């Protein structure tokens, strides 16, 4: 089915082909009859061998031969010579079939089945494998079979590692060999085998080895992914750390006495509009085990029940980078001035573990003050029922280097001060530095530029508490790559965007935000926004959102009241690229009983249903999307009883 020319190279003898087909059909028909009637005579079994030589994909014939073998083995009563001769025959049939098609799953499996009966010398198998790998060093069946044989022979990982070295020495362009090397090396490092205990030494050796592959042919991808893996191994932070929280250590927070919407919040004192007060913990990697035993919260008022911490992850119910809980704040008594001191202690008892199995071992304490206000703050009008408009005067503009050091200091102070040594002065930094210098020599080509950009980014990840450096250079490299490799333009653009975001300070520094305007960008995803638990007003208009399923993160924002998703591409695309990154019956991540049949109109708006159904939105804008129509708006009004404004019009 692959690689045959459309116009045959020589004229086709129609009659001969038809005769060949007829003969094959006759053989197959006879074979199936033997199989149905369980006939395992010598002739019948030979017929199956003939068939498998013509067509090794005829899986029923392999099954048939196994049945014949089982019967013959039973009859010869374990006489070793007979057993060997029976199994030898099978190995021969497999070899003949593989000669016809050395990618035949059925043939390779049959050989494994025979070997599991304890036959064939393993050296013979390795010899056979060497032959196959010489013909095609990328045949993954052969590599899988080699793994199988090595396990049966109990060959050491070190010996197999040497084999990959031999393959690479023969030909650097052998992705399969690099892949197998990564598997063996991971194993050896994991079990701390002698000679593989110093990560520094092991990685330095491997960098040298793969460098040749990258420099020999700049377009050959064989070493690219191996090099990226080495880089990940170099900078990967082993220890789970708390990097940010809300509230922040030392903050002073005012809570108003009644629910109302405040359009603007001032910086040092945070106003919050609900009695359900969120606590957010932001880690540097996905962790599990955050609960009321591992995180203790003490405040002036009694918490009658254990707090329930939830991981903010759309599909994982056990672990996440960001965890949140809510405190139920009691009503303030008249004439009393209540100020509570709250202490959150993270990880003073064991139990928080990263998904890679490393225990959290840097206990942190976050203390802050809560002031309950008895009278509502002064505001010009009762903004409870007013419509929020996304005007520029809702926001204060901060120029970098302006006379407003407070914001800058504030953003800097939002990160947790860990007593963890920055690894910037260790072997990791040395390797990154060396590699960067070497790869600057390759700067004229795609892999050179991409690798330098990644190395500079990796350097920053070694120093998470410091301001990122080299940003301008990295942004320039990605811009150059967009021109150099236009097929992958969007890949470089997305990376470029990430660097821009990191310069600002990514989501971990924005946990305090209540009103956010992301309009007029080119966003198609808001992954990560679920961490902003205080968000009550969000504008996403004039972006590139294609579906309601792209808004999964919003399902975690319990305080969201105002949402603007107007002027996007919802309903314009036949293919939904976030369909499975979304909790729905399709991915078995919500109960099917949650799909309420009452919401069926002539169109099924299940995506909008799941995103919006539990939201208490008061204001929603959806105009300028292909999905909008009279019936869609009717559906929305039914779904959201709290809605007061839809597309700028008051709802009745």
């Amino acid at each position, binding site marked *: 089915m692959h690689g045959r020319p459309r116009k045959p190279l020589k004229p086709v003898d129609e009659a001969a082909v038809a005769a060949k087909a007829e003969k094959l059909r006759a053989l197959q028909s006879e074979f199936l009859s033997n199989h149905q009637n369980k006939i395992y005579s010598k002739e019948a079994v030979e017929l199956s061998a003939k068939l498998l030589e013509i067509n090794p994909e005829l899986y029923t014939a392999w099954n048939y031969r196994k049945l014949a073998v089982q019967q013959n083995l039973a009859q010869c009563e374990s006489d070793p010579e007979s057993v060997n001769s029976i199994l030898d025959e099978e190995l021969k049939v497999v070899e003949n079939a593989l000669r016809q098609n050395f990618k035949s799953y059925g043939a390779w499996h049959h050989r494994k089945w025979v070997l599991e009966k304890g036959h064939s010398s393993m050296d013979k198998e390795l010899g056979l494998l060497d032959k196959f790998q010489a013909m095609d060093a990328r045949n993954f069946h052969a590599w899988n079979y080699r793994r199988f044989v090595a396990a049966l022979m109990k060959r050491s990982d070190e010996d197999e590692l040497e084999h990959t070295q031999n393959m690479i020495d023969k030909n650097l362009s052998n*992705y399969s060999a690099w892949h197998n090397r990564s598997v063996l090396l991971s194993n050896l490092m994991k079990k701390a085998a002698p000679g593989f205990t110093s990560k520094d030494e092991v990685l330095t050796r491997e960098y040298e080895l793969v460098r040749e592959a990258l420099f020999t042919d700049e377009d050959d991808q064989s070493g690219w992914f191996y090099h990226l893996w080495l880089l990940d191994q170099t900078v990967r932070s082993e220890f789970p750390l708390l990097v940010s929280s809300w509230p922040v250590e030392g903050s002073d927070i005012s809570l108003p006495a009644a629910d109302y919407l405040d359009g603007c919040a001032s910086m040092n004192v945070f106003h919050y509009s609900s009695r359900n007060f969120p606590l957010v913990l932001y880690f540097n990697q996905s962790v599990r085990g955050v609960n009321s035993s591992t995180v203790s919260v003490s405040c002036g008022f009694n918490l009658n029940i254990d707090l329930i911490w939830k991981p903010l992850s759309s599909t994982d119910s056990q672990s996440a980078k960001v965890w949140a809980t809510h405190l139920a704040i009691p009503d303030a008594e008249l004439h009393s001035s209540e100020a509570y001191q709250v202490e959150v202690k993270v990880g003073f008892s064991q139990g928080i573990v990263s998904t890679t199995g490393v225990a959290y071992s840097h206990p942190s304490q976050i203390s802050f003050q809560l002031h309950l206000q008895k009278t509502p703050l002064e505001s010009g009008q009762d903004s409870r029922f007013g419509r929020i408009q996304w005007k520029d005067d809702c926001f204060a503009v901060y120029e970098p280097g302006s006379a407003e050091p407070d914001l800058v200091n504030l953003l800097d102070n939002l990160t947790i001060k860990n007593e963890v040594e920055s690894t910037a002065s260790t072997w990791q930094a040395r390797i990154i530095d060396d590699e960067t210098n070497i790869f600057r020599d390759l700067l004229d080509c795609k892999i050179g530029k991409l690798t330098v950009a990644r190395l500079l980014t990796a350097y920053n990840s070694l120093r998470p508490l410091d301001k990122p450096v080299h940003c301008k250079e990295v942004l320039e490299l990605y811009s150059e790559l967009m021109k150099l490799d236009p097929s992958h333009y969007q890949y470089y653009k997305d990376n470029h965007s990430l660097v821009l975001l990191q310069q600002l300070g990514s989501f971990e520094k924005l946990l305090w935000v209540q009103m956010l305007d992301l309009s007029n960008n080119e966003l198609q995803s808001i992954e990560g926004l679920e961490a902003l638990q205080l968000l009550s007003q969000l504008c996403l208009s004039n972006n590139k959102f294609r579906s309601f399923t792209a808004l999964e993160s919003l399902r975690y924002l319990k305080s969201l009241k105002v949402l603007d998703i107007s002027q996007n591409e919802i309903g314009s695309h036949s293919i939904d690229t976030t369909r499975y990154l979304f909790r729905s019956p399709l991915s078995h991540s919500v109960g099917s009983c949650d799909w309420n049949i009452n919401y069926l109109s002539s169109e099924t708006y299940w995506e909008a249903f799941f995103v919006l159904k539990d939201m208490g939105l008061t204001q929603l804008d959806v105009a300028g999307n292909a999905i909008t129509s009279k019936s869609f708006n009717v559906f929305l009004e039914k779904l959201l009883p709290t809605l007061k404004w839809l597309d700028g019009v008051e709802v009745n």
Partner: protein
Amino acid sequence: MGELAADKHVKYILAVEKRKDNFESAVLEHLRMNGAYWGLTTLDLLGKLDAVDSNEIIEWILKCQHESGGFAGNVGHDPHILYTLSAIQVLALFDKLNVLDVDKVSTYIAGLQNEDGSFSGDIWGEVDTRFSYIAICGLSILKCLDKINVERAVNYIISCRNVDGGFGCTPGGESHAGQIFCCVAALAITGALHYVDKDLLGWWLCERQVKSGGLNGRPEKLPDVCYSWWVLSSLTMIDRVHWISKEKLIKFILNCQDTENGGISDRPDDAVDIFHTYFGVAGLSLLEYPGVKAVDPAYALPVDVVDRIFFGK
């Protein structure tokens, strides 16, 4: 550029269904059930499923069912999980899942799960992540996913994840676009995509696009239209499909058509077959090519068929 010769492809598929005299159809006789799925799904994507006699096909499908509950590739052959899924998918296309004894089929599939969570293809024990996908997809369509140990099934798939972000057939197996599709789709259906490093795998997948605009299945291999499905559906499920050039891929697929006799081949000017015709059209569907219905990247069936199963109507 060239256009999709949809009518020619429809005629080609209908003709192949009937041809029995050539060598190719003899050699592929054992996987006719797969062929039915490829051909009929393509017809549905092109809006021409009504061109076939569904009753005749369903009758033949049921003849291929074994007493164990599994389906064979053709009448008289042995049952296997591969053909069981194709049978379920074809019945779903015709909205005739009700002809099945759901309990019987689902018990057959569930019975192929092993201790470590992996799945065998049949009683002879070959293990491969393709079979994990098949079991999960098939049981999900039959609404019987709880008949297997989903947690262990997911754990086995993760054990086949490689450092490049991709997946192989068995633990330690090299990443290959076909296996990646199977594993990513299985994780999608079981709500477990958080185990996929989307940026890492996304880069590996988008680098399958070579200079000609076509996609290969792994590094330093030739492009092939069938990877327009496996790479593209994987990219779609993890929301990274914008990382390749859609225009160049569309051009490559269209160049693989035989615009005279119908059908699509693996590479331009190669012989056409049903397999590549399906993957070419399904790829164009994922690229939102006009005139082709939307295909679901995880279940590999038209979106309206999948929505009908899960949301009723």
